């Protein structure tokens, strides 16, 4: 595959991740905890884990975090998106590539969601220099199981559909 084609795929996937996060705002999670969301944008990370290499997945996470920070959230949010995104992507990649017989996409998604939330709270704790922030972890842990399951379920459907339609194996993409 040529470099330009690979970059074009990355661009499309990052755009999709940001758009999916936007679409997600129409579907609030029925859990009354501030900051809890489905994290549907992570479906693209899962798609990447199944169909692309680790380097491409990390590039998707980094570009997505950078664009979102610059366009909407501000640079202070960059350490959070990067730490949560990179760490969860790495662990999900290892689980899928090495232990896929043990873990389904849904379980991998739940683990990814837990890692993501934990990493973000750890960064917040470090930036504030306060351990009391970690009290928030149990609440996030429970909601991560719910949101990770839903995201994993949707991710599974998306991945199967992509497999059926041979999006990543069709000649039109891999030249």
């Amino acid at each position, binding site marked *: 595959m040529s470099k330009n*084609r690979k970059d074009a795929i990355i661009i499309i996937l990052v755009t999709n991740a940001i758009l999916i996060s*936007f679409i997600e705002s129409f579907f609030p999670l029925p859990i009354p905890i501030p900051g809890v969301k489905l994290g549907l944008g992570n479906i693209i990370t899962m798609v990447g884990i199944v169909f692309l290499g680790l380097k491409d997945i990390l*590039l998707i996470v980094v570009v997505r975090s950078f664009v979102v920070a610059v366009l909407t959230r501000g640079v*202070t949010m960059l350490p959070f998106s990067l730490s949560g995104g990179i760490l969860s992507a790495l662990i999900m990649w290892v689980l899928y590539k090495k232990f896929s017989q043990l873990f389904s996409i849904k379980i991998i998604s739940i683990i990814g969601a837990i890692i993501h939330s934990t990493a973000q709270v750890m960064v917040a704790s470090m930036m504030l220099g306060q351990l*009391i922030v970690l009290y928030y972890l149990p609440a996030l842990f429970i909601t991560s199981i719910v949101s990770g399951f839903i995201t994993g379920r949707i991710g599974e459907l998306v991945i199967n559909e992509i497999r059926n339609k041979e999006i990543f194996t069709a000649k039109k*993409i891999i030249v």
Partner: protein
Amino acid sequence: MSNNLTITKGTACKSLPQWEMDGFIKIIQAVLLASIPFLLKNPISFILLFTYLLGVTFVSRIKPRTLITSSVSYCIVFLIPFLFGILMNHFLYMITGDDLFADNQGTHEVYLRLIRLFLIWYISILYFNTTPIQTVVGLFDMILKPIKLIGVPVSDFLKIVMYVVMDLSVCGTEIKESLGEKIREAAGGSGKKFKINIKTISQIIVSLIINSFDRLDKIEKLMGENNDEIYKYSFRLTKKDGISVLSFILFVVTVLLIERG
């Protein structure tokens, strides 16, 4: 495609012609402003800094809605977990009476950190909402030159970032037109219908992903073109830069006088 570049920067970009400044001068001021809260000790200096930033916000004509939307992230990441932590500590202290949970966490130092982080966030929001994305990416390209020299593909990364922004501006409108109705339908379901919604959401996402690959050849072709103009920064000094620098110097001198008593 590039004609749509400013769409994603939102309404704040529309104010640029009234207060267009050089991106480099602005970023230096932003970095200095973000560093100032770490040097201040006098509360009056903080009040002055807040007033100065409010003035900048007013002059930049940033819509309050933009600031409120962006502030949600700050509240979610810092404020809510911190306040929840204080509440839990207080609760545990009341139940156990253990000094371990004594409310010694809400010290002056922590609140100062919260204020400093808020100011850094606010200044970054001010900067990014008043600077065209081409300039921001162009500046990054210039600032990260030393890293480029050791072989890090910074330009490739920034090119991808720029194309993502352009792709977003095109797709955002297309999605509203093509999937808007489907999204509204799926979002209209109650809690009980959440299971049905999952299927609808996955259908929306699948069609989004599949349709997006129709643009693959077009984007690949664009990537192949020698498009050096995709992002650029060129130094350009205007009267507004002069006024801005002067007001900043005046602010710094005033703060210094206050800090020295």
